[in-house]
């Protein structure tokens, strides 16, 4: 799968970076190299651009550019809601969500 399919709060490892020219060079220079783990953050209000946490900083990039980044299978966030990237939009979030929204959603049985 590719990076833009990752949901907020999910983690994955980079397998390959596609694209070409300046875009590809920039992605690699910013530390998106194969084998690096990253975590998806909450996107901008309109859903694009995305933001990811990688190599202990936060990087924003557009969906169209993120589509060039191939990633491996997804792991859920290590600490649910332990980071800024809330779990309210993450359907795979199962248990342990401590935010008010998450608790409410669990009570309703939405998750």
């Amino acid at each position, binding site marked *: 799968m590719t990076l833009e399919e990752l949901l907020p709060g999910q983690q994955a490892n980079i397998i390959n970076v596609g694209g070409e020219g*300046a875009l590809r*060079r*920039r992605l690699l*220079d*910013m*530390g998106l190299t*194969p084998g690096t783990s990253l975590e998806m953050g909450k996107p901008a209000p309109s859903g694009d*651009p995305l933001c990811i946490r990688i190599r202990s900083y936060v990087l924003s990039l557009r969906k169209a550019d993120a589509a060039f980044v191939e990633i491996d299978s997804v792991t859920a966030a290590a600490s649910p809601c332990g*980071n800024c990237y809330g779990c309210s939009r993450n359907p795979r979030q199962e248990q342990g969500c401590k935010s008010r929204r998450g608790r409410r959603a669990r009570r309703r049985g939405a998750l």
Partner: protein
Amino acid sequence: MIIALIGNQNSGKTTVFNQMTGRNQKVGNFPGVTVSKKDAPLRGHPEFTVVDLPGIYSLSPYSAEEVVTRDFLIDEKPDVILSVIDTTQIERSLYLCIQLIEMNIPMVIALNMMDEMRLQGSHVHIEELTERLGVPLVPISASKNEGISELIDETVRVAKAGQKPAKLDLCSGPAHRAIHAIMSLTEERASAAGLSSRYAATKLAERDPLIQERLNLNLNELEAIEQIIVLMEEELLTDNLAALANMRYCFIDEVVSAGIHKGSGENLLTQRLDRVLTNRFAAIPIFILLMALVFWVAFGLPGSWLADQLTSGMGWLTGRIDSSLTAAGLNIVLHSLIVDGVLAGVGSVLSFLPLIALLYLMLSILEDSGYMARVAFVMDSWMRRLGISGAAIVPLIMGFGCSVPAIMATRTLPSKRDRRLTNYMIPFMSCSAKVPIYGAIAAVFFPDHAGLVIALLYLLGIYLAVLLGLGLRQRPDSSKAAPFIMELPTYRFPSFLSVSRNLWQKIRDFLRRAFTIILAVTVIIWFLSHFNRNLNFVSSSDDSLLAWLGSAIAPVFNPLGLNDWRIPAALISGFTAKEAVISTLAVMSGATVETLGPTLAALFTTPSAIAFLVYVLIYTPCAAAVTAARNEFGNWRDTWIMIIFQLLAAWAVAFIAYGLALLWGISSAATISIIAAMLLLPLVLNYRAQRIQPV
């Protein structure tokens, strides 16, 4: 001797520069504040010059700033590189660092933001890092002025000793072998071109066209290198760029895991703020509210109260000087020069100092906090509808302060189209020098709604910028959006030192302008408006040289309801500095700071005052801004096209505004419906553009 400051965007280079030189360069907490290189002597060591270069992430041949930095390092041969690192993001910072080490120039690394590392509970093993990188490291916190003197001492020592970095071995199999193979092949070529062989070989392995050219390689050599690269690619099952980036980051991961013990303290402030400030629903309202707050502080109660105090103070001073000059029996011409020329002209501009200072203060607090990068992030999808990148929002907001730094900041935008279009839009963002004009005229014609009128002018500027962007997107060939790959920096509490330095710098600039260029324009205008064609002193400016000149241009402005010869004269003087428009009007009418109101009331009717304000909003910015735009366009032809566009657009929009204002007197309902239709225009344009070329 030259010290080159190099580091990632937003790593604090300019703060280090200010600390090392005692200068007041503008800093901010968003990527790319420094766009052109600046230099100043090192404090305590006048034989050293510190050069602050734009922030970069790599030494790739794709971005203009990176090429500028590379060329500077190769051609100017600095005696020492001072690489500034944001230690909280050391991995990405070292990526640039080890490319610099390859250049084999004496080097010192400044580990900046150590205060934040301590807060996180992280620990840095300096000796371990020094040994692995082969370069001396100095821990500092530039914003708190910690470690700067040690940094200066170490940099001077390394430069004087010419201590080059130890040879780095980023041992990592095939990529390493390929670089060494290319090195042995091109060693002579590299030294002939004045490059470090390691650097040249690495760049050749990246198929860097600029280095291939610089080394004058023949076809055989190019082919041999290509074979080495292909062999490496086959062995690693990836291409050369990924292989080299991977090799560097593998080495960095090793260094970092050995040299840094990361604490568990996450930056909670940034996470919490981002949860609100980039929230799906709250982000845009908060942005609008913050901008409204900025303008309210500057033009609302706080700003106008301060301005009133200054105006009455100045009026009192003018009165005192006037009466004491009369008492002293000074020559009538000199008396007129001082009172009607200098005091009226410079005084009418000076009284707006509090507004401009407050506007700058608010904008620089926003810049320092790191919020601007979030604005770019949040606004990107909207900005793309206008055909520009979200990053363009930063220069556009800076344009509310001053067009000159804003135009210079467009250099960091990713594509040529982005830069051009943003340069066209920036003058539509009313700069702070236009505030005196808006303020003076709105206070006379709309005494109860002055704030509202000024707000509407700002909105009109934004509306026109939107219209321009959407209009240009109607062309199906408008190029695709350039990539938007930007770091979102950690929020930092604006440092009092940096904010007050920025503010003081701005106040000093403003005062300097008031007492140099505006004073000079004022004296020239005074001369032109108090002497006739035979160079005799005249009591009424209607007989003056300026009246004669102004009347020649006046017909152009007749359709806008601007009949008086003083208006074109004032607009022309505005080309030197926008504040001069109002000082010129004051001098020509023989008004003092306190009688400016009635004088203006006689010059305009309400509709023509609106037309004048709109014209001032849109017409060509000051000479300094035009020069800055010329530097960005790179030629005068495009600059002239922009100037002509601005003059025509200003006239046309002012004409429409004048017409609407006249219509308001006849039928307010008709006026409102026309304005409503105009407000719908962007939606229609957006709809059409979406059909031609979806975002």
